[in-house]
């Protein structure tokens, strides 16, 4: 059984075919890194998994349940799958603690005290217990991204999707965010990570997927993909990024 199973997903925006039949599996507790050139459709693929983008064709399964079935409410699916964005997307008008509490209060209908307890717990987990009452604009990029991770974790998701979580950060912040993500991976969180951080992919990923032009070109263990890639497009890409 896989936590997330993607089968033959296609998506076009107008004339532009972004996903051309994607198959992908993420097993429970696995960290899968999706790498590939920009514009290859990696983000769209992640967005198809939590139905932020509805695929034109193909199926997505969450724990063997076909969530692309039109009878399933996308809101329900999104509650089960966390997402962390490149631009953090914290709610600007709310304090850090409120950011984490929002979905607990309005989606899970928890009372204030219970939601606050969970929020504080998750923020402590990402090392931000001292920033509960700060507003997002008062935090560094790395801190904001950790809040975003805590916000996703608070919903107790089955998996978390990371859409280039460190691409908007300075080198110092990248490190603190990756540290939190590595720990999550070790704790057994199911994660699909679109990233350009090859170091992270090598160390933390159980599997690396090379993605280009709307298709999975090649997948395998990090060493295989980085050093002994079979496909020439993968080799060319790796040569460009790895010095």
């Amino acid at each position, binding site marked *: 059984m896989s936590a997330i199973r993607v089968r033959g997903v296609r998506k076009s925006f107008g004339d532009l075919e972004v996903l051309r039949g994607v198959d992908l599996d993420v097993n429970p507790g696995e960290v899968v890194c999706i790498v590939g050139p920009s514009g290859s459709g990696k983000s769209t693929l992640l967005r198809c998994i939590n139905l932020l983008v509805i695929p034109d064709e193909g199926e997505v399964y969450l724990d063997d349940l076909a969530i692309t079935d039109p009878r399933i409410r996308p*809101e329900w699916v*999104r*509650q089960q799958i966390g997402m962390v964005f490149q631009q953090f997307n*914290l*709610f*600007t008008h709310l304090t850090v603690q409120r950011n984490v509490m929002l979905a607990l209060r309005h989606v899970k209908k928890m009372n204030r005290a219970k939601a606050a307890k969970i929020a504080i717990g998750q923020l402590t987990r990402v090392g931000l217990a001292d920033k509960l009452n700060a507003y997002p604009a008062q935090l560094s990029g790395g801190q904001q991204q950790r809040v975003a991770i805590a916000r996703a974790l608070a919903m107790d998701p089955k998996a978390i999707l990371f859409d280039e979580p460190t691409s908007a950060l300075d080198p110092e912040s990248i490190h603190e965010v990756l540290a939190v993500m590595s720990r999550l991976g070790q704790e057994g969180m199911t994660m699909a990570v679109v990233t350009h951080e090859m170091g992270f992919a090598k160390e933390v990923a159980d599997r690396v997927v090379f993605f280009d032009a709307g298709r999975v070109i090649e997948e395998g263990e990090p060493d295989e993909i980085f050093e002994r890639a079979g496909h020439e497009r993968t080799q060319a890409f790796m040569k460009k990024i790895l010095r």
Partner: protein
Amino acid sequence: MLKLLFQWKIWSHVLYGIDATLGGIVLLLALGYLKVYRLTYAVDALPDLIQGFELSLEVVAVILPIGFGLGFLIGWARTTRFVILRGLGSVYVDFFRSMPPLALIVFFSLIGALELRGSTLNPYTTRNIALWLGVVALALHTAAYQAEIVRAGILSVPAGQTDAADALGLSRLRTMFVVTLPQAFRLSLPALGNEFSSSIKDTSLLNAIGWMELSGWSLQEVSYTYKYHYLYGSLVIWFMAAFLYFVLTYIVTRTVRGIEDLYKVPGLEVAR
């Protein structure tokens, strides 16, 4: 909502308004005392002007809530996915924004008067309905401008915010209420304050259909100045009227500013 009434941050701004008013009165008295104008002109006219001021206040108290409520709904309608709502909203805005408020007032009031002609209603009631229709016309006019402000506010909330709310499983409507509107509200307050102040001053057009509000009484008082030096007299009276409009507007804009301060959040303040 009631909590708002007890916020010092708001009242401190209202106090600014009252300070400015008292300052203005002292200035007027001083000028009168220094014989820059005849204090008696001002004193004679004051009771009537105050009466007009009260009526203006009443009209403003009707126009602002209707204008804002309607403006908010129309502005929101213009940002929804529903083509029909969007279309109706744009027709409304396009129409009311392209009409001079004076023409609207006269038009609405005349339509009312013509419709009610020969009805069995008490003539005073008929007259009042026709008069208040003019006020409604002004409210509808400002609603069109406020709708645009609200729409701009909603559209200026970055798409990432709704993405994040969607990704957490919030429904569209709830996202609107807990994410988009609270931010749009903060972003549009300065522009709303601006529109409030201009709609307050537009109430002076109501004397065209016979309202004896502040400018109605001012015209009346000016016509009495034949007894004195006409030019000085009317200058003093219009100066007082302008001053009273200033008081009314300043208190409202200061209150809006107070609300702005109250809800200020780092990262969402509008540059000033």
